[in-house]
C-alpha cells in the first residue's frame, strides 16, 4: 500500500469516526437535555395516593392456613396478568414458602410447630437500599421518590444481573413468552402483560396507587395486610409496628426491606 493512499484512508477513517461520534454526542445531549416534546404538561393524578416511603406490614398471625393467602395471590396475579408457568422457569410476584426459607437466619431446630409449619408470603421488599437497582446497567429498574422499586420493561435488556443481585429471590425472568400461559383475553385487559426476555416483579401496585386505590393484595386481605407511609408516625403501618413485634427478611444485609412481618 503506498503512503499517500494510506494517509488518505487514515484521514477518511478518522474524520468518519470524529463525525459519527460528534453526531452521537449531539444526539446524546439533545436527548439528555430533555427538551419536552409534548406541548402540554405533566402532573400527578388528583386522586393519587402519595407517601414519603411506602411500606407494608403483613400480620401473619391472622392468616391460619396457606388457603388464607389464596385471595391475595389471586388478586395480585389477576390484576397484573401474571402467568402460571409450570416448572422452575416460572414467574412469581406474590407467593408462599416455609419459615426456614423466608427467614433462614431466624431458624432454630426447636422453633414451635406452628411457626415451622406455617407458610409465609413473599414479595419484592422494595428496599431502601436495593442491590437490584445498584447493579442494573440500564436503569431499567430504579427507586422512585416514594420508595417503590419499579421496573421499566421497555428498557430491560434481560441481563438478569438484578436477579443475581436480589438477596430475596423477588425477581422473575420471562424465559418463555408469558402470553402462552395466559388466557385470551388476558385476565385484566386494562393492564399490559410482559414480553419474553425481560425481568419482572411486584410493583407495590404503583399503577393502582396513582388511581387512589390500595395495592391489590392489601385490598384482598381485608385489613390483615397494612400499607402506608413509613415516614408518617400516624400511619397504620407505623402504628402497627409500634404496637407489635415485627421482623424483616435478611436485615443483616443492610438493604432495609420495606415489607414487615408481624409474627
Amino acid at each position, binding site marked *: 500500500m503506498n503512503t499517500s493512499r494510506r494517509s488518505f484512508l487514515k484521514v477518511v477513517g478518522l474524520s468518519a469516526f470524529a463525525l459519527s461520534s460528534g453526531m452521537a454526542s449531539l444526539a446524546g445531549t439533545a436527548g439528555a437535555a430533555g427538551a419536552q416534546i409534548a406541548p402540554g404538561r405533566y402532573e400527578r393524578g388528583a386522586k393519587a395516593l402519595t407517601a414519603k416511603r411506602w411500606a407494608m406490614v403483613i400480620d401473619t398471625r391472622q392468616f391460619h392456613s396457606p388457603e388464607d393467602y389464596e385471595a391475595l395471590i389471586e388478586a395480585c396475579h389477576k390484576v397484573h396478568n401474571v402467568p402460571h408457568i409450570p416448572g*422452575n422457569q416460572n414467574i412469581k410476584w406474590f407467593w408462599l414458602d416455609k419459615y426456614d426459607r423466608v427467614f433462614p437466619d431466624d431458624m432454630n431446630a426447636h422453633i414451635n410447630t406452628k411457626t415451622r409449619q406455617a407458610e409465609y408470603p413473599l414479595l419484592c421488599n422494595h428496599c431502601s437500599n436495593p442491590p437490584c437497582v445498584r447493579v442494573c*446497567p440500564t436503569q431499567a429498574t430504579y427507586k422512585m421518590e416514594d420508595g417503590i422499586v419499579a421496573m421499566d420493561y421497555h*428498557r430491560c435488556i434481560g*441481563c438478569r444481573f438484578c436477579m443475581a443481585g436480589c*438477596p430475596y429471590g423477588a425477581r422473575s425472568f420471562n424465559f418463555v413468552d408469558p402470553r402462552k400461559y395466559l388466557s385470551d383475553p388476558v385476565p385484566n385487559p386494562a393492564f399490559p402483560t410482559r414480553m419474553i426476555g425481560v425481568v419482572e416483579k411486584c410493583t407495590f401496585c404503583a399503577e393502582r396507587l396513582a388511581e387512589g386505590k390500595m395495592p391489590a393484595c392489601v385490598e384482598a386481605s381485608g385489613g390483615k395486610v397494612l400499607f402506608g407511609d413509613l415516614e408518617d408516625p400516624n400511619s397504620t403501618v407505623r402504628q402497627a409496628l409500634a404496637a407489635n413485634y415485627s421482623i424483616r427478611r435478611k436485615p443483616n444485609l443492610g438493604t432495609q426491606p420495606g415489607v414487615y412481618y408481624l409474627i
Partner: protein
Amino acid sequence: MLEKLFTGPKSYYVWLLFLLCVIAGCGLVYLDQLQNGLGITGMNRDVSWGLYISQFTYFVGVAASAVMLVLPAYFHHYKKFKRMIIFGEFMAVAAVVMCALFIVVDLGQPQRMLNVMLHPTPNSVMFYDMIVLVGYLCLNIIIGWVTLEAERLDVEPPKWVKPLIYLSVLWAFSIHTVTAFLYAGIPGRHYWLTAIMAARFLSSAFCSGPAILLLLLFLVRRLTGFDPGRDAIRTLSTIIVYAMCVNVFFYLLEIFTAFYSQIPGHMEPMLFLFSGHGGHLAWVSYWMWAAVIMAFASLAILIPPQWRTGPLLPLALIMLVAASWIDKGLGLLIGGFTPNMFEAFTPYMPTGKEIAVALGVYAVGALVLSLLWKIALGVKREARHFSD
C-alpha cells in the same frame, strides 16, 4: 498483511470450512433461542445465570492473561518473549470477542443491548465491564497490528504505541478485576461475597491463559514449524507454576475462612460443590473432585524443574486448564446459585441447546484466532522470525 489469509495448505481451508459449519449449525440453535427465549436453556428462576456467563468469566481471564507475556517483555525487557508476544495479543482479541458474544447470547433482549450506552449507569459494574472489554479489544487490535506490521517491515514499532502497551498492561488487570466485581459486590450470595475474588480470578487467569497459549503454540509448532523458543517456553511455564500455586493457595484460603468460621452460608456452597446435597453427590461434584485431582497432579508435574521441561509438560498444562475451567467455568456459577437465596437448593444443568450455542461461540473464537494467527505466522515466516 491481510493477503496472508489467502495462502495456505488445504488443511487450513478445511479447518476454516469446518469452523464455519459449526458456527452455522450452532447459529441455528441460537435462532431457536431468539425465537423461543432462554427457556431452551437449563437456567431457571433461582439459577438465573448459567453456562454462558461462566464461559464469559473464564474467557475474560484468558484475555487478561496476555499480560503475562507483555509485562515481562516491555517492563523487564525480557527479549525472549518478543517472538511469541503477538500470539498472546491476538489470543486476547479472540477471547474478548468470545466474551462479548457470550454476553450477547445470554441477554433476553439482545436487540436492546445498546441501552447500556444509551443510558450509562456508573453505579453498575456491568457498565464498567462493557467499557474495559471494548477498550481492551481496541488496545490489543491496535498494538498487535502495529507491532506486527513493524516486524514485517523490519523496523522498530512507532513510538506512540509504547504508551498504549503500558496502558494495556494495567488494562488487562482491570478487565478481570471488574469481572470479579460483578460477583464480589453482591450481598447475599455467600460463595461470591469475598474480597479475594478478584485476586483469585487473576491468579487463575495467569496460569490458565498462558497454559492455553502454550498448548496452542505446541500445536502450531507441529503444524507449521514455528518455534516459540526453548527459553521462552521455560520462562512461561515457570510463570504458570507460580500463578497456579497462588491460585490453589487462594482457594484454600476460601476453604479456611468458610470452615473455620463455621458460618453455614459460607460453608454451604463448598459443601454442595464437593459433596452434593442430602447425601447425594451432585453431577458437578464429580467435576469438582476431578478438578482437585488434576490441579494437584499438574502441580506435581510442573513444580520439579526437570519434569516441567520434559515431555510431560503438555499433559500437565491440559490438566491445569481443565482444572481451572471446572473451577471458574462450572463451580463458580453453580456454587453461587444452586444453594439459593432461600437457603435451599435448585439444581442446574446446561441443556444440549445451551451447550450448542456455547460451542458456536467457541467456534467463532477459534475462527478469529485462526485468522489472526495465520496473519502473524505469515509475517513471522516472511521476516524469518520463525525459529532460532
